[in-house]
């Protein structure tokens, strides 16, 4: 769990917000996390390939998809990173800044995924 001193916007995963969004339907919440854990890895892999290949169009649409997924899940920080990447890809940003933005997204994902895993372990117990 995150340190309580951190502000909401800095939370990696805002679970209370998600609870509210699913209207406390625990089963749905688990289902959404499962969908995310299934879809996220392959989407970010395709995104990594698109960025490496300098494919701006696909970079933009894939980061757009990730942004939506992350925002719905309540992962505001990662969603913001995906939004930044989408913006750069859409405005034909520099290759280095694109890669930096991707790195930022990957870092956010790296702190988010363990939280989701921990949650799933918790609810399955």
């Amino acid at each position, binding site marked *: 769990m995150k340190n309580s001193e951190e502000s909401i916007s800095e939370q990696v995963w805002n679970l209370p917000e998600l609870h509210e*969004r*699913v*209207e406390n*339907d625990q089963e*749905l919440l688990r*289902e*959404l996390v499962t*969908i*995310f854990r299934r*879809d996220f890895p392959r989407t970010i892999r395709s995104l990594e390939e698109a960025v490496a290949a300098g494919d701006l169009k696909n970079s933009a*649409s894939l980061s*757009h*998809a990730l*942004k*939506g*997924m992350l*925002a*719905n*899940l*309540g992962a505001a920080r990662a969603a913001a990173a995906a*939004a930044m990447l989408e913006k750069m890809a859409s405005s034909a940003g520099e290759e280095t800044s694109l890669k930096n933005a991707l790195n930022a997204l990957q870092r956010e994902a790296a702190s988010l995924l363990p939280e989701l895993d921990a949650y799933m372990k918790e609810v399955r117990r």
Partner: protein
Amino acid sequence: MRILIADDEALSRRLLEKTLEHAGYEVTAVENGKRALEQLFKPDGPRLALLDWVMPELDGPGVCRAVRTRSEQPYVYMVLLTSKGSKEETVLGLESGADDYLTKPFDSEELRARLRVGERILLLEDRLVQARENMRFRATHDSLTSLLNRSAVMDLLGRELQRSQREHKSTAILLGDVDHFKRVNDTLGHVVGDEVLIEIANRLLSAVRSYDYVGRYGGEEFLIVLNSCDPNYAPSRAEEIRKSISNHQINTVKGPLSLTMSLGLLLSADWGPRPIEDLLHEADIALYEAKAAGRDCLRIAKPLGKIEAPPVAVQQAVRRRH
């Protein structure tokens, strides 16, 4: 109420689906714009739609544009879901034909409130359509008998005459008048008179085929159009219509009444192309002849001022059947 969700992103789609199911909607969820159109174009398809802006195949605004190009279809209330926030994009979305838009991630309470707005609009549309249909019916039907009114049945007769001319077929025009109807009104009152007219209208309708026309031509006068009617059978069909009135008494609040109808028949094939007014005038002369011949009978209008009684065989055959 049914609603369509179109979103290519599985998580968002599932979240929307569940949220709306909780809110009591019957949800259809698809993953791209093309599928969305397939659903919306189905006869009786959903009339509320929640469309993601960015989708493969066809995006949300594309779906809106395609739906709005159709005319004469029930209104579909469409809400675009977007993570885009700029004013230009909002304008673009609404210009494409969307009724509203929501930014993702959505707030479920706001989503439900906005969909209720949509439901109100759809309800309003249903009421308007219903009101229009009622007015259309009232404009073309007689308020007492619910038969076609004079102008409506004459319109249809005009079209039918042209069609039978084109297709070398014959239309049978029948003018029928209730015998001694004035006596009913004078002695038993208008309420009974109305009852009689309603019952006669029903009998006439039952005596013809579904694609024939029956209209109230005047007070107690009816115009019946038998479409594509073989001239050889027209007299016997007219006789059957006549018998449908005289065969059974009509029940009224003042007791059962025996009533009859006189009929003038005209076969368009006998006359060739003539103005509808002329043909109706000739049918009316035949009807007058039927009255003069003692009522409760049929007379056929033939060219050159000839009026014929139906062949005796026809009268007997019909009599035997009843």
